[in-house]
């Protein structure tokens, strides 16, 4: 019984982190309609900004976290303006954009590894002597509780922005048809830039939380990215709520999957789930 409640808690925490990745990925996919693989590396940028500011400069934890989120967003914004926007202006296919984002991912990850080495690091300031809570036999750390709560808050905040503000309506209009949105006077390039900033900032936040929960490594971006992508697709790509559902489904399948098979198979399990979904229900749990 204890193991089940622990696995449930682990699944929920994993689901919350995947939610953060999927939210940003989905938001960006909605307006640009290509798989932005660079989304993985902005999470790494968030984590390493905090590592640099708290470690080398000795800055306050919360301030560093805010800076990490900001720089991750800025990086995403920069990638859009420098690489993706010029390509979109030329009306290139989504494959070209995908390959370009793969290039951004590979080179940015390598640059981070050059500066910080490829070693595994912890952002650890809080993990030593932190509070641990237990729920019916399973335990959850304070960091994990923060992950859970902030994940939910960000999701609520994002849906409010999308549903209640003019900015959100503009995003939805671009989602439906970018060409027509431009005709009715929406500055699509500017809005898309902002969407890149917001989506990447959320991913940066995910990277920071992972750093506090387990640790950071330049290569962690690929894993986070793929989980976000898989969660988005099985939830219904471009659908915010679907992405959240997909994230938790992925979290549960992965964590209960490794109950019976060794933990190293997690990645493979995630892809099996994706392929299964693409074959049986390619539009995802919730259609757009």
């Amino acid at each position: 019984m204890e193991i089940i409640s622990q696995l449930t808690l682990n699944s929920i925490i994993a689901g919350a982190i995947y939610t953060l990745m999927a939210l940003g990925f989905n938001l960006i996919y909605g307006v640009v309609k290509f798989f932005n693989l660079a989304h993985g590396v902005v999470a790494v940028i968030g984590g390493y900004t905090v590592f640099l500011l708290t470690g080398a400069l000795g800055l306050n934890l919360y301030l560093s976290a805010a800076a990490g989120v900001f720089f991750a967003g800025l990086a995403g914004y920069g990638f859009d303006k420098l690489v993706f926007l010029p390509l979109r202006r030329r009306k290139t296919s989504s494959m070209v954009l995908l390959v370009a984002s793969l290039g951004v991912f590979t080179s940015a990850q390598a640059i981070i590894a050059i500066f910080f080495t490829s070693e595994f690091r912890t952002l650890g300031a809080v993990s030593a002597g932190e509070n641990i809570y237990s729920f019916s036999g399973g335990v959850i750390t304070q960091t994990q509780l923060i992950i859970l709560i902030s994940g939910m808050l960000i999701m609520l905040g994002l849906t409010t922005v999308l549903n209640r503000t003019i900015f959100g309506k503009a995003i939805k209009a671009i989602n439906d048809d970018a060409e027509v949105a431009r005709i009715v006077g929406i500055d699509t390039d500017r809005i898309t830039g902002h969407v890149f900033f917001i989506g990447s900032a959320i991913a940066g936040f995910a990277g920071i939380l992972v750093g506090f929960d387990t640790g950071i490594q330049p290569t962690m971006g690929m894993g986070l990215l793929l989980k976000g992508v898989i969660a988005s697709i099985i939830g219904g790509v471009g659908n915010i709520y679907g992405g959240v559902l997909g994230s938790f489904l992925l979290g549960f399948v992965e964590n209960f999957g490794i109950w019976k098979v060794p933990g190293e198979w997690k990645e493979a399990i995630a892809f099996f789930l994706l392929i299964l979904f693409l074959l049986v229900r390619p539009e995802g749990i919730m259609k757009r």
Partner: protein
Amino acid sequence: MEYLTHLAILFFIYAILGVSLNLVVGYTGLLSSAHAAFYGIGAYATAIALTSLHINFFLSLAAGIIITGIIAFLIGIVLSRFRGDYYALVSLGFNVIVYSVLLNWQGLTRGPLGMPGIPRPEFVFDFSSNISFLILSFLFVIVIYIISRFLVASSFGRVLKAIREDEQAVQVFGYNTNYYKLAIFVISAGMAAAAGSLFASYITFIDPSSFTVMESVFILAVIILGGLSNLRGSILGAFILVLLPEALRFAGFPQAIAAQMRQMVYGLCLIFLMLFRPQGLLGEYKL
């Protein structure tokens, strides 16, 4: 001299990988990022046949190609149902799954420890010296190139190019495009397996880290730089991307940093190509 021979052998191995991947990506228009998986399966199959079963290299090579072909066939059945960016994503997923299997099926592959002591080929001639191995791998490149040349010039190749341009139109003419996509995928995987066999027996040690998604990205960079839908382009791309990073070695960077700078160069290569010359150096087709 030894060093130049080493580089030339690596160049030949990547030329084979590039030419074979170009058949799928360039000629058929399917952005496969699973090539390193087949390269790895071929390498492992050959290594296991050589070290545990002690059979001749050329028989092990054939075994590697056949096993890889069967696995590629099974993966291809699933993959053929997708197109565009979903194809890219699902193939990437298969690379991750194959990598996990190589890493975790420890009874067969020894997992992260890798497989040491893979012998060099021996058949009539002894290929244990690097120079003779160089000649052997050169012969491989020639054979693969001729087969590929023949394939793309044949009516089969014309159907592939037609699928790339407009799959639906080809279907209207009564071709079962899935068979064609599956066939070229399996052929290309078999060629990658041959490159894997060469690699395993040349380095004499393999571990899963040589067959990651990043390796697939590298092979993609090779063919995109050289030019899609042009076989000579892939050879040129392999030449440039194998030799270019060697300049970093002479610039005196430490090993770990040089490896990362290599990754950075590949990544930047992809970005600049997409921005300024998406058809690559000699390409006849743009993504």
